[in-house]
């Protein structure tokens, strides 16, 4: 059971990080569909850095930077040139898939040392819980820290409230003097960093090698996860564990010969997302919505 729980957590972490980053991006009113591409570039960057510098911790930094780089490309187009966000995001993913294939070609077939587990003194000796919660790698702790940070940030800090204001009504935010474009740039780059680190987790911990398109659609699941969590940070943890849990459950079910077809289980996360979407749109009519109202709309500051 311990081993399975650890597997579930490991599977969930890339989703968790990418979704958290995307949540902040979307809260600022920018819909970046390039998560998959940013994760891929994070993965290739991380692996390259570890091969070059030899220390897996540099992989985390490199992964984050590559994600930021991709997010900057997206920001230049959507925020400065006001291009359509959906099209640009899709374009970013396609672009990054090709670019990482090219950049990763010399890395194929090489393996790197994995990120070591960090045991937290005494706490890691607690039976069952200790093994799962306090004997993780650095990125796992980091992702929890990020979630706690952004929960506080969005709810209580002034900058967080400004960010939400920009996402909800950019014209009003602009008219009271907040730099809408700058804030969106920061939020998008933060999203890129998280997605990059999430992508980096795959070669650094899960499967220590590079192969083209190795994220295999996890970026899209992360996008669904943001909706599933209805833009509330702590729900992303729950969602990521459910998504990861179901992924593992369908594998366990097959190994043990459960009578449920594995396809039905694979379908569950997406069904849950649709249910969440329906519930959210039902609530919109009653009270103020959780969906950032300016989501996906380009901002023209000349208006």
């Amino acid at each position: 059971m311990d081993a399975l729980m650890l597997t579930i957590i490991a599977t969930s972490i890339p989703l968790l990080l990418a979704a958290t980053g995307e949540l902040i991006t979307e809260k600022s009113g920018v819909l970046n569909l390039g998560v998959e591409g940013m994760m891929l570039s994070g993965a290739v960057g991380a692996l390259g850095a570890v091969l070059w510098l030899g220390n897996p911790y540099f992989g985390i930094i490199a992964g984050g930077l590559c994600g930021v780089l991709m997010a900057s490309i997206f920001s230049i187009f959507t925020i400065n040139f006001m291009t359509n966000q959906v099209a640009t995001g899709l374009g970013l993913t396609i672009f990054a898939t090709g670019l990482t294939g090219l950049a990763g070609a010399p890395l194929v077939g090489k393996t790197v040392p994995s990120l070591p587990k960090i045991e937290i003194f005494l706490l890691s000796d607690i039976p069952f819980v200790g093994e799962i919660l306090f004997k993780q790698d650095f990125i796992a702790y980091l992702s929890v820290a990020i979630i706690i940070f952004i929960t506080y940030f969005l709810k209580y800090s002034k900058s967080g409230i400004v960010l939400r204001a920009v996402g909800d009504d950019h014209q009003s935010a602009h008219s009271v003097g907040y730099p809408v474009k700058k804030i969106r740039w920061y939020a998008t780059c933060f999203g890129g960093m998280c997605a990059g680190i999430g992508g980096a987790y795959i070669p650094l911990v899960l499967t220590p090698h590079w192969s083209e398109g190795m994220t295999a659609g996890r970026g899209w699941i992360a996008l669904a996860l943001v909706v599933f969590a209805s833009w509330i940070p702590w729900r992303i943890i729950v969602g990521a564990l459910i998504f990861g849990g179901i992924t593992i459950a369908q594998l366990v079910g097959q190994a043990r010969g459960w009578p449920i077809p594995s396809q039905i289980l694979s379908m569950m996360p997406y069904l849950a997302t649709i249910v969440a979407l329906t519930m959210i749109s039902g609530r919109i009519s009653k009270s103020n919505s959780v969906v950032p109202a300016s989501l996906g709309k380009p901002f023209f500051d000349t208006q």
Partner: protein
Amino acid sequence: MLKFCMRIFSLFALGASVLFFIFNSAFAGNPTKVGFVYLTTPGDHGWTYAHELGKQMVEKRFGNDVKVSVVENVPEGPDATRVIRELAKQGNEIIFTTSFGYMEPTLKVAKEFPNVKFEHITGYKRSKNVATGNIRFYEGRYIQGVVAGLMTKTNKIGYIGAYPIAEVIMGINSFAQGLRSVNKDASISVIWANTWYDPVKEADAAKVHIAEGADILAQHTDSPAMLQIAEKKGALGFGQSTDMSAFAPKAQLFASINNWGPYYIRKIEELKSGKWNTGDGPNHWAGNDWGGLKAEMLLISKFQNMPDSVAQKAQEALDGLKSGKINIFAGPLVDNTGKEIIPAGKSLDDGALWGMNYYLKGVNGKVPG
């Protein structure tokens, strides 16, 4: 003066290159144009890389007598149709489409270009100008079963399959036959990944198998992720399509290696001499072109990470399969629900292998769908 020299020199160079060109085209004859369609970029392991090695053997064998074009990263489906048609338009005389999912696209394009020869790899549908080539992969899996049966301590084998199609199922059953030939207590659990290639999912499946008590892992998917997990967790496993020991030096017992080169070379030679055929014979399924260990289309890498006694048993199995002494699917065969498949004295023919939708004794669970 310098300028003048440069002019003379460039004139000379131009003349030389024109001469070379004329010479080249006059004496090299018309190279046979050969096209390849790859599912992914070749990288340096796995399914497509094995085809890439075959292509390189073709180039080495024929030199200037062939002109090879390759299209990488072609998704199975409408894109494949477009790519194959383009290759045919460019005047390729023979086109190898190297994945199962190219079956319908290949047949569709073949109809439009009756003078072009098509070779669909691992398919089962043919037409006048579409041949199919395949390897008896399952023979390697029998040896894997033998080694697994001797090496396992928990008597639990974890198997990761891509899709529940006959190709994969016959591999599992062949593995089971090998396993039960040395160890009647061991059994196989199968996890279907529902993808040929998703390293993270394959790694997850491997972790689940190990958590469920398996100590030997086998795969019919393409990434080295399973072996890497085995390496990390102290389990053992088998490489797929190419030697993967670089990824798991302590975990890989051996790898079944796909060797397409000889097949490609033979078919191109047949085309050049006008003897190309689709191999249709009395046995439609894979005809005369379904080679295995004996035809050296399937090779076995070095036996490693196992005691000499086990390596010796594995070698015996290999020799037995090559000489025909071992018949993997000889009766009596019973499926895992106890139903008789074939009585003693008879054995399954190739057609029956391609119709497999059941597990033999030694495999847990049932085939989905």
